[in-house]
């Protein structure tokens, strides 16, 4: 397998890229590929389309692939997986200490102020949190890092609409102009305002890759544009 990971300062690109699970190709990006930087990118696709595989490759969890991936080193990527990963016996205070210990780019004060802003309990173990609260905790910790790339795999699926708006504004405020945010989601209509660019995947292939303005020329909403593309 001819694979190459090139470390960049924040730019993300895939060239002639493919991931296979056994004989099945789950993700296939053509030779001309695509390149992105300094944007908030929405990654849309039906279940099993290859979104998580793309995200895991960026996070450095999938290292057996074909082609070239350009991305910051996995340590310089703030990654939120599609499932809770902090151990349930930890409380937020311990999680904050853990992150501060691990990542030099982690801002402890910022994380604690975000915890207060979202009214999350500091001393209660995560096992006592609701699903939405757990998602908020993961997102807060991830956004308290100062990274060139944030990779968020369905981070807002269980959050209530009121808190979701708060979190969207936190995402916009927390990430710098030079940072790239790649976020996969199925709740397109609710959060489409945050994106400046959209990639749509189906059956492991990229079926659309354009700016939001371009999509809006074709359809009035991103969700409509996504459904139209899927129906083709």
């Amino acid at each position, binding site marked *: 397998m001819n694979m190459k990971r090139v470390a960049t300062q924040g730019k993300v690109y895939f060239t002639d890229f493919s991931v296979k699970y056994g004989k099945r190709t789950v993700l296939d990006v053509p030779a001309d590929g695509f390149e992105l930087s300094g944007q908030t990118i929405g990654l849309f696709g039906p279940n099993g389309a290859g979104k998580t595989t793309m995200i895991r490759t960026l996070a450095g969890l999938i290292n*057996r692939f074909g082609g070239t991936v350009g991305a910051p080193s996995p340590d310089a990527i703030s990654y939120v997986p599609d*499932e809770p990963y902090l151990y349930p016996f930890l409380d937020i205070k311990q999680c904050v200490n853990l992150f501060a*210990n691990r990542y030099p780019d982690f801002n402890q004060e910022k994380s604690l102020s975000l915890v207060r802003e979202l009214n999350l309990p500091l001393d209660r173990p995560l096992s006592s949190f609701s699903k939405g609260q757990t998602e908020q905790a993961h997102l807060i910790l991830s956004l308290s890092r100062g990274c060139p790339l944030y990779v968020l795999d369905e981070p807002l699926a269980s959050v209530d609409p009121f808190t979701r708006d708060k979190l969207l504004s936190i995402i916009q405020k927390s990430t710098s102009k030079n940072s790239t945010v790649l976020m996969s989601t199925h709740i397109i209509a609710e959060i489409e305002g945050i994106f400046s660019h959209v990639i749509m995947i189906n059956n492991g292939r990229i079926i659309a890759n354009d700016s939001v303005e371009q999509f809006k020329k074709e359809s009035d909403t991103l969700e409509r544009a996504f459904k139209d593309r899927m129906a083709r």
Partner: protein
Amino acid sequence: MTKRPTMRMLLNETKIQARKYLHFSAALLAMLLLCDAVSVIFRSTPAVVSIAGMIRIIAWCFTICYFAFELFRYGNGANDYLLLTLPSRKTNGLTLKAVTFFCILLVFTLLECPFTAYTLSTHLTGADVAKVIAYDRASRLLGIIAFLLIFMVVSYLSFLFRNVVVSAIFTFGIYLSVTIAEGCMVLLPRLLHQTALTWAIGYNSDFAGASQFINIFPIMVWNNQKTGSLQALGTISGTAIIANLLLIAVFYFIWKLVSSHIPMNYIK
């Protein structure tokens, strides 16, 4: 931006891993202490002592199997992102789990010292008891390190297989082959017609020689003609230590080699 793991960071991470296995470790410790207490209190009732001894062995076997399974599971479906998102190389997660298990087993091994000393033959006194205990415990710790290293390497290589059943067969198959090979090496003097040496699987509860460890597996080997003295530590003891040290060196080298040269998908 990239941060090499510092000692403080590794200590903190190990603490969190140890916390993850706290309930399991506490339950196991309680069981071992209970067995030891029963053995001491009912020392004159052999049936009770042997049942307590059997439960101890089952508890140890269960712990070892559980830790082996946890190492294997880490890369084969557990998707433990807290470890997978550790800075630097992703293999650190596997190392950290192995270090945590070593620390837990180290505590158990040390806590068992008084009981081991208590059950030793009355032929031994003072410095001799200390020597035998030091030998026995050090030998076990070497065995534990060898066992964890073998499992780290085979668990890492098992990431290559997408199918978890194939991974399991590969992991346990390789481990078993290595253990049988080590066993043959340790028992070579016996195979080479030293008929004075007798061996059996299990622990020496009544010192007639010494407990040896083929990585994690305890075997008893003793010399019929030198029973009850320090001389009984004899030939096999040296071979067992050398075999375990050799395994540690070989598997440490393989670990360094494969973890830096064979890229893996850490998620299945």
